């Protein structure tokens, strides 16, 4: 939606930036259709699609029946027939019913039809914990989808990245899951260009350069990592990488950084075992073995069910936990 006074003065939140990208793409490309539960009149439960139905009408911004497989499956059909659907799944926990359509169909269609049937679709999904939400509203399932050939998985952590990556995702010829860390939705504002711009999928961002140790993270834990960096001794030089894209992730940036620093800590909200941290640690031992000065550490959620919110902050990696892992790794 057009910018408000507050946005002009103080910048955009993650919600504002995503809304602006959707607005601009709906305006630019008549093939774009938003569909999902409550995305229309209500503007989405997080108000990410606020105001869009009023401007673009109920044919372009569609309140669907309450059925995730139906949303995903019909979005696939829309994409097959030349539209650019942007289905929203209200919370990552509700990807379950849509899993079959997403993984067994959207992800495979280009391959199984040898390129004759393709699914250019962007699935928007709020993700992660930290907002005192009910059960199945706080998980971090990105590794499951990163393990699915044919899908791309994106998780921006800032308003600027969100706008540029979302525009790339919508214009991508393949299905993209666009995870929106809900803990960041309104946590801060930043300056975002009003004009159209894209950030390439698959490109990490170095948030702070350093020489002693590399921290790799993405999504909301980026801010817990920044918090941890504040707690470290001044002479410890840490390079912080926000992966931004989970699949295909930016191997080169990680490899180059760890070849320089020789130490790495990976931080994510998702459970530890078989998470993306395991993949990144393996990449590092394949490519940086002789550069390593310490084992790669992981600071992650636990291999448990995501707890209800009274304990969620005990589960999620926070500044102190991350700072401790960094110091242990630095002192190894």
């Amino acid at each position, binding site marked *: 939606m057009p910018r408000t006074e507050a946005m002009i003065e103080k910048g955009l939140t993650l919600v504002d930036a995503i809304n602006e990208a959707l607005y601009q793409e709906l305006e630019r490309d008549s093939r774009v259709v938003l569909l999902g539960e409550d995305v229309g009149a209500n503007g989405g439960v997080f108000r990410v699609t606020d105001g869009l139905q009023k401007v673009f009408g109920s044919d372009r911004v569609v309140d669907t029946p309450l059925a995730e497989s139906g949303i995903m499956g019909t979005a696939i059909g829309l994409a097959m027939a030349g*539209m650019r659907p942007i289905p929203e799944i209200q919370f990552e926990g509700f990807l379950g019913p849509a899993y079959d359509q997403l993984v067994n169909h959207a992800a495979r269609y280009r391959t199984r*039809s040898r390129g*004759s049937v393709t699914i250019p679709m962007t699935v928007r999904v709020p993700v992660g914990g930290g907002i005192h939400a009910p059960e199945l509203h706080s998980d971090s399932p990105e590794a499951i989808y990163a393990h699915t050939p044919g899908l791309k998985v994106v998780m921006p952590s800032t308003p600027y990245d969100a706008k540029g990556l979302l525009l790339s995702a919508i214009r991508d010829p393949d299905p993209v899951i666009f995870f929106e860390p809900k803990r960041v939705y309104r946590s801060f504002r930043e300056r975002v260009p009003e004009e159209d711009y894209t950030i390439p999928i698959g490109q990490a961002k170095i948030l702070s350069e350093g020489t002693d140790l590399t921290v790799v993270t993405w999504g909301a834990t980026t801010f817990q990592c920044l918090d941890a960096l504040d707690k470290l001794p001044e002479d410890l030089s840490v390079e912080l990488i926000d992966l931004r894209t989970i699949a295909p992730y930016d191997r080169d940036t990680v490899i180059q950084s760890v070849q320089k620093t020789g130490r790495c800590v990976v931080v994510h909200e998702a459970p530890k075992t078989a998470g993306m941290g395991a993949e990144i640690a393996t990449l590092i031992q394949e490519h940086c073995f002789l550069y390593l000065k310490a084992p790669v550490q992981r600071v992650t959620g636990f291999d448990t069910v995501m707890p209800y919110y009274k304990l969620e902050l005990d589960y999620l990696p926070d500044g102190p936990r991350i700072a401790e892992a960094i110091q242990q790794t630095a002192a190894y």
Partner: protein
Amino acid sequence: MPIKTVYKAQVEYMQILDENGKLDEKLAKDTLTDEEVLSLYEQMTVCRQLDEVAFRLQRSGRMGTYPQNKGQEAAAAGMGFAAKKGVDWLVPCYRENLALNMHGLPYHYVLLHWMGDERGNKIPEGVYVNPIAIPIGTQMLHATGIAWAFKLRKEPRVAVTFFGDGATSEGDFHEAMNFASVMQAPVVFFCQNNQWAISVPREIQMNSETVAQKAIAYGMPTIQVDGNDLFAVYKAAKEAVERARAGGGPSFIEAVTYRLGDHTTADDARRYRDPQELEAWMGRDPILRLRKYLTGKGVWDDAKQAKLEERAKTIVQEIVKTAEGIEKPTTDDIFDFTYATLPAELERQKSTMRTSSLGQDPAQAGLRDMGTATHGHSAT
């Protein structure tokens, strides 16, 4: 307040050509011309021949698992003919080879699919059919989405989706029906009720008297037809397609038919099916029925039949020859269609798959000197 009825419903059944080849002239009016019937009869015969040959190809190890279409040719022909080739979009499961072929998919594509070659799913430009769908019931949502796109773009086109009685137990079936009805998408739900979902008969599959009645819950026009009756299938299909094209939304058709073969070549229906039941349905064979009708009309005879069977054999021989003449795809094919543009890691895996167990450039892995140098660390 007294209790009152708030909704009443009924399901109609239509048969036009009975088992003895006798036509209900009144109902048949404005359906198929003699010429069209003859052409469809010939196409059904070729399809049956292909089906029999495909079965033998599997048995002799020249093709993988194959699901026979035998017995369901009238359903595929009637529905396929009612939809407009090159305009409407067919979204199949796997027992309507004839409909796919009528809409421009060469038969050897179907064989290629079952020969384990994805190029059988590579839909030629301008042909509006989806690849054969193996999982049950998932494709109806795709058809609904395709039809929804037609509606959004105000194109006078229709999507037609095929599925079996078993598929109507799947959640996706109900979600597709609901979405289609809510969106008033121009889609025809065409159920080939062939009585069996592998070994589970219709009576165990559902407790509703008909499949057709399921559409009533979604506010969708619905009908049950004799699925082995080309005329009845075509008439119902044509009405449904016309309704959708005119903006009247989705329709449901239950074509009551029978799977004369096993579920697939990997199945043996004798384990669970009463041979007398099969025998009875053999007598209702849609092709036999048409032959009786055409013979009764005086436009068909044994000589013509013999000629047709000869021709069908030749056509099918050519199809098999074409499919078997296509060379195995290259290994690159595994990679090349995963994304529009291959990510760097996939490029790496593709270029090193034969040389590195790591799926990466050995130099990058720091293994360049492996086998010649001593271990780096201990040497220093």
